[in-house]
């Protein structure tokens, strides 16, 4: 199951994913703390959506400066986890990015 998520900032997204049990903090071999997905979850951070421009640089479709993330769950999420996700409506007819 895939979910398209949106929050005001990257840190807000990470906080939500951690609180929902879909991500966790981990320390890499150089001591840097990173937020990584938990088992059965793939996370693809997109960030802000840039505007669509034409050949002359004119904006055809405005962008969205908010933080966007796609997740793919290979496990069954609980109703509480699903409720906690910052999904949005309407979803775009043509998503900016999808999973293969």
């Amino acid at each position, binding site marked *: 199951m895939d979910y398209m998520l949106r929050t005001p900032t990257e840190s807000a997204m990470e906080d939500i994913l951690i609180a929902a049990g879909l991500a966790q903090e981990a320390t890499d071999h150089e001591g840097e703390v990173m937020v990584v997905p938990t088992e059965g979850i793939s996370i693809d951070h997109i960030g802000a959506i840039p505007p669509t421009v034409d050949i002359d640089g004119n904006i055809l479709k405005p962008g969205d400066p908010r933080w966007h993330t796609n997740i793919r769950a290979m496990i069954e999420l609980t109703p509480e986890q699903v409720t906690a996700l910052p999904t949005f409506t309407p979803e775009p007819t043509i998503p900016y990015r999808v999973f*293969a």
Partner: protein
Amino acid sequence: MRSLLGRFHRPMSRGAMGDMLTMNSLGDGSTLSLDFTTGVLDSRLTFSRAGGGTYVGTDGYIYGVDNATSASLAIGTGSKSVTITATASVDRRFQVGQNVYFSNGANNMSGLVTAYDSSTQVITINATATTGSGSFTSWFVGNASPRFDYSPTNIGEPRGLLIEGSASNLVTQSNGATSVWGIGGNRTPTNNTTDLLSPDGTNNATKLVCGTATNYASYATTITGLTGGGTYTVSYWIRGPVGHTPRLYALNGTIGDVTPTATTGTYNNTGWTRLTQTYTLPATTTQVYVYFMSVSIVVTGDTFYVYGFQLETGSGASSLIPTGASQVTRNADICYIPISAIGFNTSGGTFFASFYRGEANLDLNQEGSVLNTDYADTRWLSIKSGYGQTTFGLGAWNASINKTGAGVFGLNTAAGSYASWVTSTTGIFTVNGATAVSGTLSNLGITPNNLMIGSASQSSPYNGVSLRDFLNNSIKSIKYFPTAKSAAELQTLTTP
């Protein structure tokens, strides 16, 4: 060659025939011996990739992701069938039991293949998971099974199990659809040309017929939303006469052509070549033109063919991620085996790995792991490249022993072999028969849970997905001996 497919080991299948693993010695003293060039995954290995991924088959064509059509088909569970757009009787190598995704944008359904008939190109899955809703007539079909890769040029030469990290193709319409590729002029594009087969063996490349000689012609698109100062790699297949020069043009920040920091490939007019270039963007550049073709025309009517454009972050080109109207992310390959299944000897043992470093992987400032464990960052082989040197290392959290040299081992463009033995405190290793090096290690006293293949764990212990340092290429074979071999034996073991 395609008619001979049945003679080869079928990729992506699992079965008892491939179970060469045993706790007993296998005759050479090893208690683990896996040969990935057979195209069979040992059933005691755990493999996962949450989505489709492409690979090169035994005939040199690209498989793993296909376009398909259907009558109006609703997202849902149960039996679902679509028709792949490849020519009838061209085997696209889907097999019963493989996990496959049918996707339309963010809507998809996935499940195991229950039937595939290459004569009709109808593929049927028993969908057990879904995302989104609605009914659609066009699809991407993505194979989420293990990928056994083969050489695209030396046809039929196996490269083993392909293990790559996650990557995104930031370019839409990767085969050059005119709906997206509208920049440039003095050429006439034709999508889905029937002039020739594309690198995936179908008619989905774009033909570009150039205009008047001595004039400039180009075929490009705009990419926005990049990170200023970031490193990106462009890759694409091209076929045509001389004259094309790879190009990426910054539209903001420091406006103008960006000079590639690395490039691979020399194309010609007789076959497909994948060209790659790596660029570091100017500090404030976030918009660029990327070019499928950029040429000062030599002869009026010069014709180029292009296919599979990819723009991804980092300094190496990964396997092709086909795109349509959206950018597409390929998820990471995960492969491991329980340490309890390999006869692991905590007092000392020897690992051997033979692996491939592809020509398309520029491998600059990257780190890859061939064999690793899921505990305390213990690694049996890591490869670091950067600053003009390649380093092979054996190590743990805070100690390592390395061999360093500028291309000494030549593993960026060729297969290599590696062997090491380790105890709880010391290690010794060699690469390709070179003189072994040894040193003191630490944190090797912990018995890990799993032997990771082609990646490293993010932190202890491995939890299934928190991985890093992907090999981003393929592993041909691995072995484990529950005894410590001498330096001379390691050299012999790894001599090409």
